């Protein structure tokens, strides 16, 4: 990790705080109009998808309905739900956009998400052992974790996690790895499991029972379309999130180096532990602007559509302090994620030999 002394960290904090203050002072109608426009688009796509779905016996309609519902779920989860729950729109004082009461369209309950994501992941980002989002306890992505034989099959785990992403995220707080290590007891998790059953049950009821039964004669088609829409969202959300922290150069940290850290050090960790990807306007919207993961991690509670606007300033701060700013095309960044999953599935001896050979070839 890039080392800065206390003065430099203070300077970094001041520089980033200045960017943040400038945006905060400018928040207003433009931001309110933006999020309401996205919400209107979401409502339109969801209604469109649900209405078209029963006519899915016509193949192009099936594709349109599934895509419409899938994109609606993506927008709701990523650009609306995730960002609202970060408190990005709390300043609007609109009870339906309140970070603490918003409930989103996915199996994970908002309560659980706010604990595991907003608090654990955003406070302890990429600290091995404290940020449970790092590899989601099913993937080995750095040599901080000792290789075990089952890691060699972790690519299968990755595909399964992506496919069933909403259920994986929903069960994240169960902390299965701590249960198997007997650090915690299952009975401590009963309140969580009840909460999960309630929210997960509600989601399954809606997409897999209620809407199919509502249009009984074509129930299988509606069921298939709804499964498809959830699958589209699962794959996309997982891909975007993996590109945010598991790319080639995204750094990891140890608990020792972060003990009693300053705000400046926290900023430094967010800058070096996250990675962006580039693309067109709608790629950013559909990723909930997590394509600007660096900006998001530095300023998690600024409205996300502001990230593209402040990106240049953040890059200038990085340049000034000689901190790497990790970005690249979507394809390139995702490529490095896949290669990271593959490389760390190998025993260290084999991995370093292969990596050494590749470096030699590069020279």
């Amino acid at each position: 990790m890039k080392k800065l002394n206390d003065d430099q960290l203070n300077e970094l904090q001041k520089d980033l705080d200045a960017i943040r203050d400038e945006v905060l002072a400018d928040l207003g109608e433009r931001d309110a109009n933006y999020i309401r426009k996205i919400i209107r688009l979401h409502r339109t796509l969801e209604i469109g998808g649900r209405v078209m779905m029963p006519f899915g016996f016509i193949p192009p309609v099936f594709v349109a309905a599934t895509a419409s519902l899938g994109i609606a779920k993506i927008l709701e989860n990523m650009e609306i739900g995730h960002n609202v729950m970060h408190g990005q729109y709390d300043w609007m004082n609109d009870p339906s956009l309140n970070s603490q009461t918003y409930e989103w369209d996915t199996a994970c309950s908002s309560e659980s998400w706010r604990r595991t994501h907003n608090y654990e992941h955003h406070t302890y980002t990429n600290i091995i052992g404290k940020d449970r989002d790092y590899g989601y306890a099913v993937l080995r992505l750095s040599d901080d974790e000792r290789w075990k034989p089952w890691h060699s099959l972790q690519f299968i785990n990755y595909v399964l996690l992506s496919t069933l992403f909403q259920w994986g995220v929903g069960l994240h707080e169960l902390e299965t790895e701590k249960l198997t290590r007997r650090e915690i007891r299952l009975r401590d998790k009963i309140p969580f499991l009840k909460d999960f059953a309630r929210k997960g049950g509600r989601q399954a009821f809606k997409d897999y029972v209620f809407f199919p039964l509502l249009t009984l004669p074509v129930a299988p088609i509606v069921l298939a379309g709804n499964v498809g829409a959830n699958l589209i969202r699962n794959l996309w959300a997982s891909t975007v999130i993996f590109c945010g922290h598991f790319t080639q150069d995204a750094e990891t940290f140890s608990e020792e180096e972060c003990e009693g850290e300053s705000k400046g050090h926290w900023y430094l960790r967010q800058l070096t532990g996250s990675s962006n990807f580039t693309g067109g306007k709608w790629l950013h919207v559909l990723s909930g602007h997590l394509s600007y993961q660096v900006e998001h991690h530095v300023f998690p509670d600024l409205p996300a559509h502001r990230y593209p606007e402040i990106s240049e300033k953040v890059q200038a701060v990085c340049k000034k302090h000689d901190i790497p700013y990790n970005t690249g095309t979507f394809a390139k960044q995702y490529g490095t994620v896949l290669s990271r999953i593959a490389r760390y599935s190998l025993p260290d001896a084999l991995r370093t030999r292969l990596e050494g050979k590749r470096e030699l070839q590069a020279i």
Partner: protein
Amino acid sequence: MLARISNTKAFHWLGRQLMNRDNPAAWLDPLTETLNPMWVQEYTPARVERIIAETGDTKTFVLTPAKRWTGFQAGQHVNICTDVNGVRRTRTFSLSSSPLLWELQGQITLTIKRLPGGLVTNWMHDSLEEGDVIGLTEAFGDFQIPQPAKPALYIAGGSGITPILSQLETMAAENYRASVALLYFVRTQDDVIAREALTALAARWPALSLTIIATHEGKEPRYLKDSDLTPVTGLQVREVYLCGPKGLMDLASDLLNQRGVKEQQIHSTFFAPPAQAQLDGAQLGGEVTFTTSNLMVGSEGDANLLDIAEAAGLKPQHGCRMGICHQCSCRKTSGTVVNRLTGKVSGPGEETVQLCVSVPQGPVVLDV
């Protein structure tokens, strides 16, 4: 029919399952709002029918609330909500019309004075137009006409006349059987709100005796004095209603006490303009009320709300304790707080605050 179905418990349950929210009917609001703002479900929408200039700095807004609004009693208030520069603002105002206007014509009026520096009142005066829609809550407040009829004395100052207008209109229409006196204090004769309505009332309803006193027309200010109470017959048996600036209400209470009017006969109501908050270390701290926990504790200096709550034995949800994760965000129902990160001072009304970085400035009430 549809309304009846949509009010049933089962329908509401289903809505919660499908929309993931406690008020499923409001799920469509963002779309319907653009078609017709009167269809909004999240709050009761009210259309501005007419705007009447009362004085140089006071306007009366005639509103038509959506039919589901449940009405009010004379002397009660409502909260209105409206978005000003993207931020939803809630403010309390007294209804100035009689409930009869609502019952007969489906309309209500709010008479609102422009407060110097006031965000919402100035916005209403400058930007709100006929045809616009604002949000309304149900009416509340216990400033009510005595039942059965008793002699009454009203002492009003400035825009404090508004709930009294509503009561007088109602009493006149019901042919209230006891004598009613009104002492109305204004800065100058130009500042009399609803002068025509008041004179018309006094003319057609003999029980009302109306006295208007200008305080700032002479060289010396002319405030309420003991001799103003002399013409009010049978003062000791009257129910007294005070509504106006704090100075007037304090003065009136003292004079009434001296004349032997009992505390329980005196009723007062008013919404003071927001106090000008200053970023002064000595002014930080204050009484914090946690309504859900039914607890009240004092605080001093720059202790934040989260620390204060925890010191009081509460365990509010929290996370990073550095203003990042919003785990500790909760509703503040009244009071002013300073954000220790930005130094920004909050508004006095209901809003969401981050406990871990909010320092009270005077008394604060929280939904915790």
